[in-house]
C-alpha cells in the first residue's frame, strides 16, 4: 500500500483497490510489463513460429493463456494467396493443443513444399491481429522426371491399335493427361480427339504408368463417331505420338524433356491371337536358363507381365522367377529363382491376353455376329507344355 507522491515501492498491488483510485494510471507501464508475463498484453509480446514436429510442420504461439481468447481466435493459419479474394478464403483445417503456455496448431494435412502460409494471431480481444508469413521449403531436389518408354515399342501399328502405355521415371500428377499427349499426322497437324478421355485417368498405383485408349467410338465399326470422324489412325500413313514437357510430375515439376514416338500404320488386325502359333524353347535341367516363349505378333505388354506364368505340370505349383519381355513384345522370357528340376512344365496364359488391337485369345475385339461363330467353351487359361530335360 502506497500513497501518491511517495517514491515507488514495488509491491504487488491489489487490483480492486488500484482500480478505485484515479491516480492508478501511473501504474500502467508497470502493469503492462507485469501482465505481459502472464500473457495478457499487446501482440508485440506474443510470438508465432512454424516448426517441425516429427515429420510435419506445426505452428506455435507463445505465450498463450486460455483466457481471454479461445485458441482459434488467438491464431489462425491461411494459405497466403495473392488475389484480392484472399480475404474470403477460410483458414486451414487443423487442431489446437495447449501445453503450458504454448498454443500449437497442427494442420490437418501436411503443408505443401514451396507454399507460403499466413498466420493471423493476436494476444488479446482488444488488440488487432498481427500477421506473419512462412514459406515451407521445397523438398529435396531429385532429378527431373522423364518418359522412360512407350508401349507398344514397335513402329508399325495396326489401324485398329487399341492403346498406349506411357512409362515415367517417377510418379506423375493426375488431371493433365489428355492435354499433354497429342497425335500428329505426317504434316504435323494434330488429330482431333483421337483418345478416350476419362476424368479418372488410367494410372497404375505408383502413378508411373498411364494407359491411354484410342477412342473406342472411332475404332469400333458401326458407331456414329466411326462413321462421322473415322478411325483415328489410317492404314498407310505415319503419325507421331507427342508427349509435352510441361506435364507436371507428382511434385508439380515439369518433365525434363518431351517425348516423341513416330510410327507407321498397317491394316486393321481382326484375328484373335492363338497360343498354337507360339514357340516354346525349353531350358536344360539344373540350369537357371530362361524358358523362352515367342509369338508371331506383338502382344500387350502389361497383360504379358500379368497373365503368363510357369507352373509344374504335376501340381500346377507356380515357379518363382523374373520375366523379361523384349523384341517389340514378341518374346517372353522367364528366368527361375532356383535351377530347373527335370520334368514337365506348363506355360499358363490368361485368355484375356490381348494383341495390339484388343483381340484376345478368346475372341476378336469386335465379334461379328453375322459371321458364323464357332461356339467355344469360354476358358480362363490356355496352356502350352514344355519339358525340361537333363
Amino acid at each position, binding site marked *: 500500500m502506497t500513497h501518491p507522491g511517495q517514491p515507488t515501492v514495488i509491491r504487488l498491488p491489489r487490483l480492486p483497490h488500484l482500480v478505485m483510485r484515479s491516480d492508478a494510471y501511473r501504474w500502467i507501464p508497470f502493469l503492462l510489463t507485469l501482465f505481459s508475463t502472464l500473457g495478457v498484453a499487446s501482440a508485440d509480446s506474443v510470438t508465432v513460429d512454424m516448426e517441425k514436429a516429427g515429420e510435419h510442420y506445426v505452428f506455435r504461439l507463445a505465450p498463450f493463456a486460455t483466457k481471454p481468447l479461445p485458441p482459434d481466435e488467438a491464431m489462425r493459419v491461411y*494459405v497466403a494467396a495473392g488475389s484480392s479474394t484472399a480475404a474470403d478464403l477460410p483458414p486451414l483445417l487443423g487442431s489446437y493443443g495447449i501445453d503450458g503456455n504454448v498454443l500449437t496448431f497442427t494442420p490437418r494435412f501436411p503443408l505443401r513444399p514451396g507454399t507460403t502460409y499466413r498466420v493471423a494471431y493476436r494476444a488479446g480481444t482488444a488488440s488487432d491481429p498481427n500477421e506473419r508469413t512462412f514459406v515451407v521449403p521445397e523438398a529435396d531436389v531429385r532429378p527431373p522426371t522423364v518418359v522412360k518408354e512407350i508401349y507398344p515399342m514397335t513402329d508399325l501399328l495396326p489401324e485398329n491399335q487399341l492403346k498406349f502405355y506411357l512409362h515415367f521415371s517417377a510418379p506423375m500428377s493426375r488431371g493433365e493427361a489428355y492435354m499433354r499427349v497429342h497425335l500428329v499426322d505426317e504434316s504435323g497437324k494434330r488429330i482431333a480427339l483421337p483418345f478416350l478421355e476419362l476424368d479418372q485417368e488410367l494410372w497404375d498405383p505408383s502413378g508411373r*504408368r498411364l494407359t491411354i485408349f484410342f*477412342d473406342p467410338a472411332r475404332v469400333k465399326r458401326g458407331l456414329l463417331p466411326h462413321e462421322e470422324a473415322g478411325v483415328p489412325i489410317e492404314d498407310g500413313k505415319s503419325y507421331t505420338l507427342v508427349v509435352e514437357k510441361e506435364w507436371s510430375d507428382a511434385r508439380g515439376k515439369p518433365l525434363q524433356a518431351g517425348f516423341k514416338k513416330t510410327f507407321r500404320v498397317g491394316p486393321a488386325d481382326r484375328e484373335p491371337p492363338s497360343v498354337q502359333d507360339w514357340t516354346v524353347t525349353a531350358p536344360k535341367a539344373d540350369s537357371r536358363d530362361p524358358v523362352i516363349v515367342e509369338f508371331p505378333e506383338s502382344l500387350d505388354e502389361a497383360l504379358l507381365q500379368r497373365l503368363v506364368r510357369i507352373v509344374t505340370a504335376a501340381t500346377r505349383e*507356380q515357379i518363382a522367377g523374373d520375366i523379361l519381355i523384349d523384341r517389340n513384345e514378341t518374346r517372353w522370357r522367364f528366368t527361375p529363382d532356383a535351377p530347373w528340376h527335370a520334368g514337365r512344365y506348363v506355360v499358363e496364359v490368361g485368355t484375356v491376353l490381348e494383341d495390339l488391337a484388343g483381340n484376345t485369345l478368346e475372341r476378336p475385339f469386335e465379334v461379328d455376329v453375322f459371321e458364323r461363330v464357332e461356339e467355344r467353351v469360354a476358358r480362363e487359361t490356355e496352356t502350352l507344355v514344355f519339358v525340361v530335360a537333363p
Partner: protein
Amino acid sequence: MTFSAIRLGAIAVVAFALLVAPASADHHKSAMKTGKADLQSAGPLSFGPEGILFVGDSAGAALFAIDTGDTKAGSASSVSVKGINEKVAAMLGTSADQIIIEDMVINPISKNAYLSVSRGKGPDAMPVLLKVDVAGKISEVSLANVKHAKAALPNAPAADAKDRRGRSLRVQAITDLAYVDGKVLVAGLSNEEFASTLRSVPYPFGAIDAGTGVEIFHGAHGRFETNAPVRTFVPYEIQAEPHLLAAYTCTPLVKFPLSDLKPGTKVMGTTIAELGNRNRPLDMIVYGKGGTDYILMNNSSRGVMKMSTEEIHKYGGIKEKTDVAGLPYETIADLKGVQQLDRFDDNSAAILVQDESGSMDLKTIALP
C-alpha cells in the same frame, strides 16, 4: 367385452407391436463398425437410405458405406457457394490447382451437399470427404472415427499372376455408382485389358460376397459386339420394371433391365440414343416435369442436354444405320462448364460449374 375394453385391448396390442417390432429402418447401421474408414482414394459418391453415403475407392479396390448421421430433413430451396474449389483448397492447406473435386452429391434428406476430393494429384493424394451445408459452410466428414462398412471389390481375376513382390499394376477405375433396391451398383473399367464391369454389391455388405460382376457389351447395329465400359448411369423404372440408363464410353446411351444382371451372362444394353462424337457425359439424373420424365446430362463439350423418356419403352435397339438416332434431346445453351450435376429437389438440380478462370461455383438451378 365392452367397447372400451376392446379399444384398450387394441391399443395394448399396437403398443406391444411397436415395442417388439425390429427397428428395421436402422438394422443396416447396426451392422456397421465405428472406427477409421481407411479409404485410399475417394471417387464416385451416391446416397443410400438414411444418410448412408457410398464412396467408391478405386485405389483401394473397395466400396465404403459411411454413416453421415445427416438425417434431419432440410427445407432449403437453394444453395450457393462461389469459388468453392478455392475455399476447399484453402481449408486443405493448398492451392486450387492442387486439388481435384472428384464428385458432388446432394443428400436427399437434408439437402446438404457432399464432395469427394483428392488433396494432391499424385499417387499419394489424400482422399477427403467434405460436407457443404445449405448455408454454404464447409466442414470435413471425418473418417478417423466414423460408423462405416467396407466391401472389397475384387480387383484382379483369379488367373492373374503377380510380380515377385506380389504387386499388380492393374487398377479397376470406378466410373460411377448408385444405390438401387438394396444393392450398390458399381461401374468400372480396367487400366489394362479392355473390359468393363458392372458389379452389384448387396447392401448391407455381406461378410464374404463382394457381389456379382457382369461384363457389359454393346452391339452396334445388332452386328458388332464389343466390350463397352460405362461412364455414367442412373437407375430408372420403365413400365414398373427397374432399369439402368447407361452412357457408354463409346457414346451410345443404352437401357437394360436390372434383372439382366445375372453372373455369367452377357449384358447387352439396348441403344436408346446415339450421342455422337465429342460427347463425354459426366453425370445423369432423371426428373419429372409436366407429367413426363426427362434425363438431364452434363457433357464435357456439349453443355447440358435434356432428353425426354417418352416412348423409351418402345426402343428395341437401333438396328439399322438408317434408324433415327433414338430419343430426341435438346442442349441447354446457357449451361456451359458444368462439371458435376445431381438432383437437389423436385424443382432444382445442384451443379458445380467452372468458368474460364478455373473458379468453381456450387449452385442450384431450376430443372429445365
